[in-house]
């Protein structure tokens, strides 16, 4: 740490205003009853910016998990929600949206505090939460759950019906928005749900669940449980759970998929990536550099479509790195609740240690260097400056780091660029900067769920487009319609028909 009057003055202002947070107690919600998760997890939920441990993380007990499973199942069988007419469910979702509109500020602050994502970003993302419920309501009203297919003896009805009680498991980088997407879709489908948010950011989901119940939905529609992967495993492997939607890391995703395989449950996995950003020789280097900085700093570099590898035409490598360096130098790394901060800390201390360790091991390569000119604030939070690593052999750079660190690799031909981009086993997102026509052609050759040309943004370019994931990046597309459909199964009902006789 360096002690400079100026930088500590800035942090002083930050720490004075937001220091000493208190968090609401986490609670389980089981059949409309708020209960304290009975066990302790053995670590603390912390303020990512100050590093202060705020609350001992808690975990639902096996008995609480069983009660939640029983409630979700009984609720679904009772049909108080699943049997409701789609129109009425849509009305209820609108009411939830209305409740949530009043609480986006609270959600944003809770997420910023515990996840370390800056308030600017959490505010943007939590503003989407009511919108997500309204979109689900709108989708529901479009009649997509009921279709008539012309048949030989009259119309055949294809009903999309809820699969049953489902489990939703969320990540720590954008907790509210991701859980909200799964929840709105599952509710629209008519499922009763059990939610388990990440144990590191358990608070905002409680508010989300409160809003659902305050909107007057049946009390056994949403159950909330807390804990780590072990709790998640107890939920998803229970035969009463009929489908699972999971967002998180590869290890967790594989565990969920394995648990679901036993009962052949549909599972939706949204995992990570090691996403390439290609810079062609004729790219607008300033725009590319801007995108690289955004890729490293958005959600503090902890987002599934963040940049893992920057793949640059050798002829423009030097000027591009110079531009990135200048831009990184002006990034304001600070307290996540400071609206002036461009970037905040990593989510927790272990994650910081992991990123540091991974970076150190990548830098073992001879003549590798780190480009990280951003100043770190004088706070004890889990800060890591946005960093580009140059000179790391490409084959060593194919794992996901999930932090503000990307590697840089030169290419000399487009064939080489595509082969580098398609290396590795992930396939989530890619970015290409260059002459638009050429870049679009290359985009068609990259193996990824989405490729953005001459741009980079956290939000999808088209809200109704599916969010696709290939390879180790996931299973099943997400999207307003896609996720709603994921939680439903088809039931085909028709009238008439004759036994078919083989004709002589």
């Amino acid at each position: 740490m360096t002690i400079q009057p100026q930088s500590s003055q800035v942090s002083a202002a930050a720490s004075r205003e937001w220091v000493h947070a208190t968090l609401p107690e986490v609670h389980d919600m089981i059949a409309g009853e708020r209960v304290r998760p009975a066990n302790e997890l053995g670590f603390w939920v912390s303020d990512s910016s100050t590093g202060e441990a705020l609350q001992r993380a808690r975990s639902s007990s096996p008995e609480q998990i069983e009660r939640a499973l029983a409630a979700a199942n009984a609720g679904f069988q009772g049909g108080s929600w699943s049997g409701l007419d789609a129109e009425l469910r849509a009305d209820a979702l609108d009411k939830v949206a209305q409740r949530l509109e009043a609480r986006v500020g609270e959600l944003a602050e809770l997420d910023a505090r515990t996840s370390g994502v800056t308030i600017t970003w959490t505010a943007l993302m939590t503003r989407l939460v009511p919108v997500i419920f309204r979109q689900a309501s709108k989708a529901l009203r479009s009649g997509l759950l009921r279709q008539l297919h012309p048949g030989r003896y009259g119309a055949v009805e294809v009903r999309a019906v809820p699969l049953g009680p489902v489990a939703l498991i969320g990540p720590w980088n954008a907790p509210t928005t991701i859980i909200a997407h799964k929840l709105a879709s599952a509710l629209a489908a008519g499922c009763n749900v059990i939610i388990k948010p990440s144990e590191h950011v358990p608070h905002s989901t409680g508010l989300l669940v409160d809003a659902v119940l305050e909107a007057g939905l049946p009390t056994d529609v949403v159950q909330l449980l807390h804990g780590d992967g072990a709790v998640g495993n107890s939920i998803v492997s229970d035969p009463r759970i009929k489908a699972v939607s999971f967002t998180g890391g590869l290890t967790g995703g594989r565990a969920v998929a394995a648990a679901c395989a036993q009962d052949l449950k549909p599972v939706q996995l949204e995992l990570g990536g090691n996403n390439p950003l290609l810079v062609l020789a004729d790219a607008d280097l300033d725009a590319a550099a801007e995108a690289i900085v955004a890729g490293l700093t958005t959600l503090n570099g902890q987002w599934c479509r963040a940049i893992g590898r920057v793949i640059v035409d050798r002829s423009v490598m030097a000027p591009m790195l110079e531009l990135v360096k200048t831009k990184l130098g002006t990034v304001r790394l600070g307290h996540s609740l400071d609206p002036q901060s461009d970037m905040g800390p990593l989510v927790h201390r272990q994650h910081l240690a992991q990123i540091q360790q991974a970076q150190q091991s990548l830098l073992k390569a001879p003549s590798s260097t780190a480009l990280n000119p951003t100043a770190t604030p004088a706070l004890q939070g889990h800060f890591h400056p946005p960093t580009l690593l140059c000179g790391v052999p490409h084959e060593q750079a194919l794992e996901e780091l999930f932090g503000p660190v990307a590697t840089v690799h030169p290419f000399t031909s487009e064939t080489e660029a595509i082969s580098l981009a398609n290396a590795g086993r992930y396939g989530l997102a890619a970015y290409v900067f260059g002459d638009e026509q050429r870049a679009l052609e290359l985009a068609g050759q990259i193996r990824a769920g989405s490729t953005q040309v001459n741009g980079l943004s956290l939000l999808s370019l088209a809200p109704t487009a599916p969010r696709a994931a290939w390879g180790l990046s996931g299973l099943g597309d997400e999207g307003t319609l896609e996720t709603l459909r994921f939680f439903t199964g088809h039931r085909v009902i028709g009238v008439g028909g004759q036994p078919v006789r083989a004709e002589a």
Partner: protein
Amino acid sequence: MRRGHFIDGLESGQDGPSFQVINPATRRPMGSAALGSAADVDRAVDAALAAQPTWWGLSPGERERTLLRCADHLEACGEQLTETLMAESGSTLAKARFEVSYTPALLRAAAGEARRLYGDTFPNDRPDRVSIVLREPVGVVGVISPFNAPLALLIKMVAFPLAAGNAVVAKPSEHTPLVAVRLAQLLSDAGLPRGLFSVVTGFGPDCGKRLVEHPEVAGIAFTGSTQVGSIIGAEATRRMKRVQLELGGKNPVLVLADMNAQEAAAEVAAGAFFHGGQICMSGSRVIVEAGLVEEFTDALVAEARKLRFGDLADEDTAYGPLICAEAVERVDAHVQDALRGGAILLTGGTIQEGWTYAPTVLLEPPRDSLAWREETFGPVVTVSSAPDLEAAIEAANESDYGLSAAVLTHDLARAMDAARRIRAGAVHLGMHSFQSNTMAPVGGVGASGLGRSGGRYSIEHFTELKWISLQVGGAANRAVT
């Protein structure tokens, strides 16, 4: 404010080389002090050598009266020192006032000791002989005083040797030279004979070193870090000087399960965060008996967060800045090291402004962390849990230091049991580990120092015993039968 040395009853060297004194609250110079050299120390020692025989030649009653007059004068004018204390050391108003009021109390305690330079007699095998033990001053005592309580700790190291008939040359910390010069001036004004108490301001490598090495300085009293203390101790001992070292601590505070968590937390916070933890006796390692840990840590965090920093003159201000940028770096390094090792930061861990560090509570520091092993000398308290008293005592003793300790419990039997078994110079039962008493023997075992200061213990340290045998009639050379 530009001050010189105070040597032989006169301020001198104001026009010579000087160094800046930084106000830690503003981080700007608040004055300057004379930059002392070995020659300045020599002048002060010469003056002391000249003054000491006359002082020792006075009757104990006259020495007592002189010191009481000094006490009265400081009680009347000591208020003048408050502002300098605050500006120079970053003291809050309350802490500066405490030091100012403690100064006459110490002088009076020392004054009484002037009459109690007890000697001894012992029986002799020969009835015609008498053995007498007389107690005499060592001569000139060199004092090197710290920055944290620059007035109270200086006067303590000065008053008792004076009462014993010594002369004193002091080299105050380079962070806080001005209050020392003012003190010497005030004592001189009150009638302390010239040359008996001189102050040479400057740095250790020039002035401190000369003071320790000067052949005519017979005793050394040092309060400060273990690192510097061990050098001074070695150099002084090599020259056969009397040496008294009051060094660092990593003081354990045991909180037993019968305590009320709130009360225990308030007591721990008071002992740990006073003057930003820049007190050698600050309780920095809290060991809580199982069962009370969660409730206690919650209460301690609440106490830590209640403390306010700000304008030092404001009575609500609980703590001020650390003494210098290096101190902030050290404190932060200790916190970061503990966190890297897996400790949990419950509150604090940040620089609040300039050199002000937030009151910090760390849970379960690893046993190899700096925050557990080394003196942090800042507002950082660690909390560890122990399954029972046995384990708590074991943890308390897991330190190279052994200055002060505390046990918070209402169970007197367990408290005494712990007090006997904790390795420390002091164990305080039912209160925190930072306690002052003019008459108490203050000092530590292990890395915490050598010898004790306060009351007759200081007197014993800075006097020599002389065995006098007296032949009463008859022949001196008669063989013993």
